């Protein structure tokens, strides 16, 4: 892997260590994410994937290390990042409709006190259209299926009009058709030279969908272009005994 120059990178993470109370969940992570790639963060449950995204975005204070985004501290770059949280992180019985949620993606650009304008509404409707949800714009949240909620969240991220996207498990609970549509959109963003960082669980689709991958399990096991990193050796280190367990009922020759 050739060394990346700093100004070719959208994100630079140095020596990042994060702990909840005394338990470290990320240990000494170094990460240089080039501009215009689709990067997957892969690892077992509890590996610290969500924590990594959240600490890059400045939502969690690290115990050590630093993060820079487009050469600046995250505080100065809030409006260049877009975020799609895990779907389960909100109450979907909240009294509002899909359009209103998508419009929330504009709040960062609006700043304090200003209400969304007609132009914001149009952007939101366009985003709903791109994720195939235009007909659902006035649908109450509690009348949306899981996959539809996922797409509303995606539309909200799109409407942020960011240069760098963080998406936490966008493919969980969506059907194959929706998954194809979502990855199509993500590739479209990448082709507009935006950087998209995605927490992903499916090893089968990894090389089809992504350019780069970070294998994570508290420490970063391996990082780089997918074809260089995706080796059996690396996967075994990442998933440890659990991968062996998954493969236990296959004939096991070693």
């Amino acid at each position, binding site marked *: 892997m050739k060394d990346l120059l700093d100004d070719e990178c959208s994100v630079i993470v140095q020596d990042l260590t994060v702990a909840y109370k005394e338990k470290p969940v990320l240990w000494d992570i170094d990460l240089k994410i080039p501009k215009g790639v689709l990067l997957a963060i892969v690892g077992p449950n509890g590996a610290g994937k969500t924590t990594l995204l959240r600490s890059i975005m400045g939502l969690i204070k690290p115990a050590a290390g630093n993060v820079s985004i487009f050469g600046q501290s995250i505080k100065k770059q809030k409006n260049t990042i877009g975020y799609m949280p895990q779907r389960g992180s*909100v109450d979907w019985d909240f009294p509002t409709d899909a359009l209103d949620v998508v419009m929330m993606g504009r*709040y960062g650009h609006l700043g304090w006190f200003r209400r969304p304008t007609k132009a914001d509404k149009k952007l939101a409707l366009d985003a709903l259209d791109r994720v195939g949800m235009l007909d659902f714009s006035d649908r109450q949240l509690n009348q949306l299926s899981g996959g*539809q909620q996922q797409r509303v969240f995606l539309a909200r991220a799109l409407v942020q009009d960011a240069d760098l996207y963080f998406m936490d498990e966008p493919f969980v609970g969506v059907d194959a058709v929706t998954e194809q549509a979502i990855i199509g959109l993500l590739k479209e963003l990448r082709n507009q030279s935006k950087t998209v960082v995605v927490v992903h669980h499916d090893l089968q689709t990894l090389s089809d969908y992504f350019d780069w991958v970070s294998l994570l399990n508290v420490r970063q096991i391996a990082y780089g272009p997918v074809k260089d990193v995706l080796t059996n050796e690396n996967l075994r280190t990442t998933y440890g005994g659990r991968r062996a367990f998954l493969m236990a009922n296959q004939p096991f020759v070693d």
Partner: protein
Amino acid sequence: MFVDLFHFNYTLGVVMSGAFILGISSGLLSSFAVLRQQSLLGDVISHAAFPGITLAFLWMMAKDPLGLFLGAIISGWLGTLFVHAIVRYTSLTHDAAFGIVLSVFFGLGIVLLSYIQQTPSSEKAGLNSFLFGSASTILFQDLITMGVFCLIIIIFIILFWKEFKLLAFDPNFMNSLGFPVVKLDILLTMLLVMAIVLGLQMVGVVLMSAMMIAPAAAARQWTSHLGFTVLLSGFFGLLAGVIGTLFSNYIPHLSTGPMIVVVVSLFVIVSLLFAPHRGLIWNWIQTYYYRSNIRANSMLMNMLLFSETQTDPYHCHQLSALSAIGRGPALRAMHELKRQQFVRNPEGDLWGFTKRGYQKAQRLQATLFKDDHGY
């Protein structure tokens, strides 16, 4: 009767205005509390405010409303800080922290109250009203303090509308946008404390938590729009205040605070039962209606299937051949279809399409399974 009802004397006017202000502010704030799943926090705050009232009284040795309010606000606020600290620095969960803070603060308040009872102050009598609420102790100067707090609450809700909405729905995302979520949380909790403290004298520490849940719980049943939920919740609050005051004024021996709580609880019951879309009874009717509609449609589809085996689509068949859903429901569905002139029943057990019915069945076939999933 009506003239009599609205022939306000001065005291009733003061009490009524107090109930009005209290209802509106607790109604507005309760919707945010309930949507943020913090309904129990209201109970903690109201109990935690009590020692503040007694301490403020001991400090001033007088029942100055502003002083008592400030005392209540500070100790109510301290209570929420303790809850946060306990959850953060110990392994206890929220409900345990709520329980501890509520009982410790309230206990302290009671101890101080019994101490005050032994002092020679002439004004101490009024303090009891903070326990179970007493409208008759409300004075005009109390009204002014309440009114100012209520106005502050309304102005802040209007000003921070978009911010509070996002805070309630998705604080994580809000944080990623660069908004100071913790500060906004503090602001909203502060308003909640104000709304609670403002009602303590009329409704009392013990029942005030109902005012922080009931109006919003009722309002949420009727609408799925945040703006309407908040407005309706405020409206239910003030309506309960006004009706409760009237009841307790015209029926002897009913005190105002508890009466207000009873009225607002009635609103909740009625809303749970009768509200469209979310109400129980509405759901029963809907389910019945949809079910019979689906049965009728499925009969039409069955008949269409049969008619495709015939040269004449209007040929009649026996019901037993058509029905796949049990004879009783099938017969009921057919009679309903006949009433709407979709099928005819020329003799005995023979049933066939009318022209209208045949067209309807074809339309159904075209639309029924068209997908509804976007992409």
